C-alpha cells in the first residue's frame, strides 16, 4: 500500500495555474509551479475544498466506476445517508434503494443502519469515566487527517470507533455470506460516497490495514443512472430499514443529536473545525463531552461529490427523516460494540515542523521571520504559495526563492537598473575629459 494515496487529484489539462485553490486549502497543501497546481501529498487531508473552489474544474476526485462492480459475482451496495437528499422529494427512500438494485446491485444495506449502531456504541463510550473528553468523532476522515497533521495533542480525543461505512460493509458482507452461502471473496461491497475523503479512507485507511469496502463510487458519478432508474422503479422490496437517527447523520448535528447528552458541540466547515480544535487544544471547552466535527459546510450533504445544493438537500432529507420511524438499539450487548473499537492508533504526521532537529528548526524559524518581514505582505499568491508567510516558509525549506515574489523581483531589477545607470555615467579617470582640476 502506498503511504500517501489521495483521492483529490489534479487534471493537468484543465488547470490554468490560477491561485484559487491554494488560497482555500486549510493545510496550505497546494503550490502553483509551472502554471499547474501541485498537491503536497503529506499535507493534503482530502477535504475537497479545492474541488469546490476550482473555476476550471481541474481538481477532481479519484473514485471507482460503476463498471467495477462486475468484477464480483455478488454485488452489495452501502449507500451514504446523504444520497437520500439528492433527488426530488417525490421519491421515497425505498424508491431510491430499489433504484440501486435496478442499476446492478444485488443487495442493499443502508449505512444509516450502521450509523445507529455506532451511535449506540458512542453512547456506551460516553459513560466510561476514563475516556478522554471532549471526545471527537472519527466519522469524517478529513477531520481525522487534520488532527494527524495539525493537532497532535488531540489524537487521544478521537473516538476510536469504526465508521458507519465500515460497520455497514462488514455486516452486509457477513449477512450475504451466511444467507446465500456465497464465498467472501465473491462478494463486492460498494460505498456510495458524497466525498473524496471516504475514498481515501478506503484505499489508504489510517486506523487499520484493510477496509471491508471493495470500491467507492461517487454520488455524482452514479446520479444520472439512478435518476433514470427511479423513473421506472418497482417498489416491491422493502429496503428502507434505517431509523431517523441514522439518516440524520448526513446532516451537520445529526450524529451528536443522537447522543443522550446536551454537552455536545457540532461544527461544520473545515475552517470552522480548525477554530474549534484550537479551543479544545487550549482546554477552553472542558464542559463539552462530545464534538462532532465535519469538514463540509452542512455536513455530508454538502460533500464535494454530491449533486444537489446543500440547502435544498437539507429540506429533502428532512422529509425522509419525518417519514422514517425511530428505531431503538438500546440493548446492544457490550461485546458487539467493543468489536467496533479500533485496534491500532492514529499516528502523528508532523508536517508543519521546519526541521527534525530543534536548533536547526530554530535557525530556520528565525530566518523565516526575517524573510517574512521583508516581503510585501499582500498575500497575492502570484509566487505560487498561498500567502507571504507560506512563501517565507518555502524559502527556508529550500523549495522556493525570494525572487519568486514579483515585487521582490521588480525591486531587484530596479536596483540593478539604477546601478547600471549609475555605472554608465562613470568614466575611468584617464579618459574623463569633463573633470576640472
Amino acid at each position, binding site marked *: 500500500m502506498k503511504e500517501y494515496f489521495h483521492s483529490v487529484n489534479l487534471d493537468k489539462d484543465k488547470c490554468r495555474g490560477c491561485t484559487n485553490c491554494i488560497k482555500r486549502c486549510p493545510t496550505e497543501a497546494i503550490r502553483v509551479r509551472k502554471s499547474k497546481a501541485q498537491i503536497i501529498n503529506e499535507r493534503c487531508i482530502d477535504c475537497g475544498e479545492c474541488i469546490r473552489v476550482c473555476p476550471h474544474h481541474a481538481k477532481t476526485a479519484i473514485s471507482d466506476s460503476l463498471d467495477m462492480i462486475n468484477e464480483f459475482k455478488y454485488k452489495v451496495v452501502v449507500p451514504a445517508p446523504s444520497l437520500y437528499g439528492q433527488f426530488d422529494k417525490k421519491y421515497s427512500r425505498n424508491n431510491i434503494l430499489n433504484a440501486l438494485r435496478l442499476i446492478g446491485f444485488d443487495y442493499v444495506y443502508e449505512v444509516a443502519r450502521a450509523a445507529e449502531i455506532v451511535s449506540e456504541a458512542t453512547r456506551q463510550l460516553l459513560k466510561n469515566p476514563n475516556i478522554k473528553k471532549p471526545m471527537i468523532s472519527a466519522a469524517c476522515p478529513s477531520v481525522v487527517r487534520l488532527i494527524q497533521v495539525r493537532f*497532535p*495533542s488531540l489524537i487521544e480525543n478521537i473516538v476510536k470507533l469504526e465508521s458507519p461505512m465500515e460497520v455497514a460493509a462488514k455486516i452486509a458482507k457477513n449477512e450475504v455470506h451466511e444467507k446465500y452461502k456465497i464465498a467472501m471473496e465473491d462478494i463486492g461491497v460498494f460505498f456510495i460516497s458524497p466525498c473524496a475523503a471516504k475514498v481515501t479512507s478506503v484505499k489508504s485507511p489510517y486506523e487499520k490495514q484493510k477496509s471491508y469496502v471493495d470500491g467507492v463510487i461517487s454520488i455524482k458519478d452514479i446520479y444520472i443512472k439512478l435518476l433514470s432508474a427511479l423513473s421506472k422503479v418497482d417498489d416491491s422490496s422493502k429496503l428502507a430499514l434505517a431509523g431517523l437517527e441514522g439518516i440524520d447523520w448526513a446532516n451537520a448535528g445529526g450524529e451528536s443529536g443522537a447522543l443522550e447528552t446536551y454537552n455536545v458541540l457540532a461544527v461544520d466547515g473545515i475552517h470552522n473545525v480548525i477554530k474549534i480544535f484550537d479551543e479544545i*487544544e*487550549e*482546554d477552553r471547552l472542558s464542559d463539552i463531552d462530545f464534538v462532532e466535527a465535519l469538514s463540509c459546510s452542512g455536513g455530508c450533504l454538502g460533500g464535494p461529490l454530491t449533486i444537489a445544493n446543500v440547502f435544498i438537500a437539507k429540506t429533502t432529507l428532512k422529509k425522509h427523516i419525518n417519514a422514517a420511524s425511530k428505531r431503538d438499539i438500546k440493548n446492544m450487548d457490550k461485546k458487539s460494540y467493543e468489536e467496533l473499537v479500533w485496534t491500532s492508533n492514529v499516528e502523528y504526521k508532523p508536517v*508543519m515542523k*521546519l526541521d527534525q532537529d530543534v536548533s536547526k528548526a*530554530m535557525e530556520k524559524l528565525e530566518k523565516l521571520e526575517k524573510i517574512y518581514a521583508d516581503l510585501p505582505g499582500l498575500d497575492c499568491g502570484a509566487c505560487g504559495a498561498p500567502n507571504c508567510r507560506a512563501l517565507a516558509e518555502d524559502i527556508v525549506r529550500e523549495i522556493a526563492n525570494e525572487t519568486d515574489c514579483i515585487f521582490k523581483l521588480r525591486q531587484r531589477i530596479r536596483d540593478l537598473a539604477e546601478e547600471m545607470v549609475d555605472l554608465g555615467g562613470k568614466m575611468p579617470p584617464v579618459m574623463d575629459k569633463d573633470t576640472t582640476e
Partner: protein
Amino acid sequence: MSTIKLRYDIPANDFVTAGEASSNVKKKLTQIGVSSDKIKKAAISMYEAEINAVIHGNGGYADVEISSDKVIINIIDYGPGIPDVELAMKAGYSTASDNIREMGFGAGMGLPNIKKYADKLEIFTEVGKGTKIVLTVYFS
C-alpha cells in the same frame, strides 16, 4: 544559542484580537517541533495572561523569547496593578465586572491557571502603574 524574539501588541478591551498572540506563538512552537504537551502549557498560560491584560490591564504588549530549551513570555500592562497578589492567586477570586463575566470571562481562574500550566511564574506589580508577568515553560 539563537533566540527568537517576538513582540505583540495587546489592545485594551478588545476581545476579538485577544488570544491572537498566544495562538501565533503556538504556531511557531509547532514549527520548531516542540512537543505538543509543552506547546499546550505555553499556549494556555500565555492566553490567560493575555486575557488578563485585556480585561484588567488596559492592554499592553507581550514580549516572547523562544530558545531551543524554553520559552519566556513577558506580558506587560499599564493597568491598575494588583494590590494583593496572594489574594489574586486564589482560585475563584476575581475583580472582573459583571459585563466581563457575562462574556464568559472573569471566573477568577486566570492567575491560578497560569501558575498551573507555566513552569515558572513571576509577577511584578505596582498599584497605579501596571503589572508585568513573566512566565517560563521548559521544553525538556
